[in-house]
């Protein structure tokens, strides 16, 4: 074999994501493209090739028969490894040695597999290689559906499979000698009907003189994007190693553009930063149809969920990727409902819940719309790019108008809930078969009912109004008070007066029909982070949340274990979510509980290490075991990153006036920390902290004003400045 095998086989059967901006492959390390993964309490098969956010195939398996021996790849694996976005495995079947490489394609949505076959000596061996895949051809919008009917067609260079608007193309470097459809021999041509499996056999001769190579690819997504005349596969056989090397080069270039963060006093957090940053990058997606964004998670949230994008963009901005943030924002805002769209559950001004090429877009959440005014402001503050954000202002205005229609006149509070039933009513007359999930509410915890005024939704509403006032208002010199600011102040006053829960030193979770909902959830901590509680109340709320009914050694539950509705298995009524742990860390650091805040961040870091860089969505409430959990979720990496920058480092910025604030909240025993290459508008800043002072260096075109804990300094271009540390 030309490629050395790894010294040891590290295969564990763990989930592996190989991805590019257009493609993904989900597999475990057992040797084939297949992945059994617990989901919704059952072991389901998620392996396959994904392109343009559609699941193109289920498992794609390969077997070999030759020289008196036969085996599938799983049964013959001797070693395997994952390097970046390339999976390699080594197999032995009788005298035949096989080196397999699998990688996603970079420019075309799909995957390529390469098999290099060799024998050490003896006579040449005829080998029959069989490829078999299960077509799926549906976006992962609906987690439980595999279409029933497909069209299969043989063409001169490919097998084409179609399901309505979606299609895939299977090609091979060695023409098939035999085709099989649904386990039966097939002469080719055209077929329409149920398809369980599409298989092909490829005859190759393996001799000691030179290795024999077989390349297979599956590409697809929207059928209209499949190019009938494309012969690039035959002209330049895709090579997984080449694709992966280019992917690695792009990855390295992106990493080099992001800040380098060092915590010598907390190497676990430094390592976690690297894990989380890499995890976030792995969710980047440019699926086509002019869409840009970040996938919410893998395996079953592999589409653009606009709420999830909203939680990821603050971290994207801190990492300095303004272009990704701008294009993601534009993608979401493009699908803002510009009229009532009852069919899709959309109200005027509402932003979509999900996006996928097609375009497919669905509405119907209480909160997604509310994130985007503040995100627009964040974008301007990081990038200083007022012109780009200017194009979003009408959408921001419509988003605020959408919220105002849901606002209680007396309190200013925003009403959440009822979206799903509105959509069901709108579509009732249209469908022959009705489906439903009795979820009357759609906050971030969308499987539980938190009507009518969930506290975190009020925080979002407050932040939206404040951001809109800054973006759309006449500025501080205006003679008339901004009505949005006035409403924001009413919301703040209502949160302070209506949600205080003195018996628990906490905040109520919601208010329904005027009655407080007395449930302890981490969502209340968002009000602390936003400064919506009295200064003396903040620390006691944070400490209350840290008690063991809500906080576990592996993170923060979605509901107190003392609550009658608690279940350790319930998605939003007891499971531990990493995003909730990040909220708790954020609130703790915001009110000066530094040790607690850092301890919570370390709990997240420990999960990244335990999961070797993956970041599970959620865990059982009674033990640190993923349950019903995507193995990589944006919620589980991006908020952690944002807390590191905003709370632990205490960074704030406004590139419009070339200003940076630095108020670190490091534990007293820390001796140093640094951050290099943080983007502020057109320049980059580096900050070195010790207990003796803060050194700032700046590379921007004009001077940078920096405010520290107790003093300020103006740093000239390519200059340095120093601040007091306390």
């Amino acid at each position: 074999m030309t490629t050395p095998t790894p010294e040891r086989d590290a295969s564990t059967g763990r989930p592996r994501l190989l991805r590019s901006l257009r493609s993904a492959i989900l597999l475990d390390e057992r040797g084939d493209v297949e992945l059994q993964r617990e989901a919704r309490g059952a072991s389901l098969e998620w392996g396959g090739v994904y392109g343009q956010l559609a699941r193109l195939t289920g498992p794609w398996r390969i077997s070999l028969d030759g020289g008196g021996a036969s085996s599938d790849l799983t049964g013959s694996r001797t070693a395997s490894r994952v390097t970046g976005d390339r999976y390699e495995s080594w197999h032995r079947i009788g005298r035949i040695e096989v080196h397999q490489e699998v990688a996603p394609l970079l420019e075309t949505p799909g995957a390529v597999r390469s098999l290099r076959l060799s024998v050490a000596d003896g006579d040449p061996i005829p080998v029959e290689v069989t490829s078999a895949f299960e077509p799926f051809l549906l976006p992962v919008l609906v987690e439980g559906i595999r279409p029933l009917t497909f069209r299969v067609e043989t063409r001169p260079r490919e097998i084409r499979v179609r399901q309505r608007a979606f299609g895939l193309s299977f090609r091979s470097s060695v023409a098939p000698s035999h085709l099989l459809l649904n386990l039966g021999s097939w002469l080719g041509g055209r077929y329409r009907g149920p398809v369980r499996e599409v298989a092909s056999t490829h005859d190759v001769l393996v001799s000691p003189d030179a290795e024999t190579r077989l390349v297979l690819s599956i590409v697809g997504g929207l059928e209209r994007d499949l190019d009938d005349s494309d012969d690039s596969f035959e002209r330049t056989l895709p090579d997984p190693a080449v694709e992966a090397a280019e992917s690695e080069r792009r990855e390295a270039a992106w990493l080099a553009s992001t800040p380098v963060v060092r915590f010598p006093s907390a190497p676990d957090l430094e390592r976690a930063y690297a894990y989380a940053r890499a995890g976030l990058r792995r969710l980047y997606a440019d699926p086509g149809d002019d869409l840009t964004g970040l996938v919410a998670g893998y395996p079953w949230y592999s589409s653009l969920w606009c709420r999830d994008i909203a939680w990821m963009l603050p971290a994207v901005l801190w990492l300095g990727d303004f272009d990704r943030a701008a294009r993601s924002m534009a993608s979401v805002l493009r699908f803002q409902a510009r009229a009532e769209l009852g069919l899709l559950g959309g109200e005027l001004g509402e932003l979509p819940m999900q996006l996928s090429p097609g375009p497919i877009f669905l509405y119907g959440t209480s909160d997604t719309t509310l994130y985007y005014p503040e995100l627009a402001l964040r974008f301007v503050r990081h990038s200083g790019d007022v012109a780009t954000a200017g194009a979003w202002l009408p959408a921001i205005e419509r988003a605020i108008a959408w919220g105002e229609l849901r606002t209680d006149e007396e309190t200013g509070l925003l009403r959440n809930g009822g979206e799903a039933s509105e959509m069901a009513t709108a579509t009732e007359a249209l469908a022959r078969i009705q489906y439903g999930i009795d979820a009357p509410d759609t906050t971030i915890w969308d499987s539980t009912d938190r009507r009518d005024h969930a506290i975190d939704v009020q925080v979002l509403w407050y932040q939206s109004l404040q951001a809109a006032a800054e973006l759309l208002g006449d500025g501080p010199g205006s003679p008339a008070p901004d009505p949005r600011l006035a409403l924001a102040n009413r919301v703040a006053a209502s949160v302070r007066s209506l949600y205080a829960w003195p018996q628990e030193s906490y905040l109520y979770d919601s208010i329904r029909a005027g009655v407080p909902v007395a449930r302890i959830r981490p969502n209340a901590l968002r009000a602390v982070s936003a400064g919506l509680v009295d200064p003396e109340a903040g620390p006691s709320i944070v400490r209350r949340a840290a008690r063991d009914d809500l906080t576990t050694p592996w993170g923060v539950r979605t509901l107190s274990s003392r609550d009658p509705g608690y279940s350790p298995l319930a998605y939003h009524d007891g499971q531990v979510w990493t995003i909730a742990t990040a909220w708790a860390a954020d609130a703790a650091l915001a009110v000066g509980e530094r040790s607690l805040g850092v301890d919570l961040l370390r709990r997240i870091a420990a999960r990244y290490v335990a999961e070797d860089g993956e970041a599970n969505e959620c865990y059982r409430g009674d033990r640190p075991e993923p349950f019903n959990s995507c193995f990589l979720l944006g919620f589980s990496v991006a908020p952690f990153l944002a807390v590191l920058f905003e709370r632990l480092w205490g960074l704030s910025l406004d590139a419009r006036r070339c200003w940076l604030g630095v108020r670190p909240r490091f534990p007293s025993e820390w001796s140093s920390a640094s951050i290099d290459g943080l983007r502020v508008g057109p320049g980059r800043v580096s900050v070195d902290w010790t207990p003796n002072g803060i050194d700032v260096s700046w590379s921007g075109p004009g001077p940078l004003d920096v405010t520290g804990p107790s003093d300020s300094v103006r740093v000239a271009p390519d200059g340095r400045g120093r601040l007091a540390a306390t």
Partner: protein
Amino acid sequence: MPNRGLGAWLSLVHQAVSLEVRYGRHALGALADIAETVEESVYEAGSLARTERGLAFALANPPLRAGAFTAVRLALNGIPVPSDSLGLRPGAGRPWTLASSVSLASPFEFHPGRRTEIRVEPMPGAIAGTVRVRLELVSKAIPPLVWLEFHDALREVPGP
């Protein structure tokens, strides 16, 4: 057509047109494709049939949510079927599971693309003609009830 129906129809047409205008010429087709795929991929149309002792039908996919379910309920024409009369199995030839034995400790699983047969025996009362069938499922992992409802004519072809 009553005025109210005409208003709803016009509203739908307006929404459809505005989708095409605002979001591109493929938007309506793509959305309709998804809706139709979901609609035709769960209940196997025409599978509702009388058996020797009751009735049976089949699902080709889970209704909206896959995974393990800790409770399964069925109603025929609005009348609940006793849980010990309701059986499920993951494909022909597999053993039947009674809904009465489905629990947190012993959930019933629905997998994408896996056919599930559902039978009611004995038949709860006189049922003939078009039947309204409502299936309710309680997920092990995500609490809100998942349901499926359809109308279909009961085929009068006794099973073997």
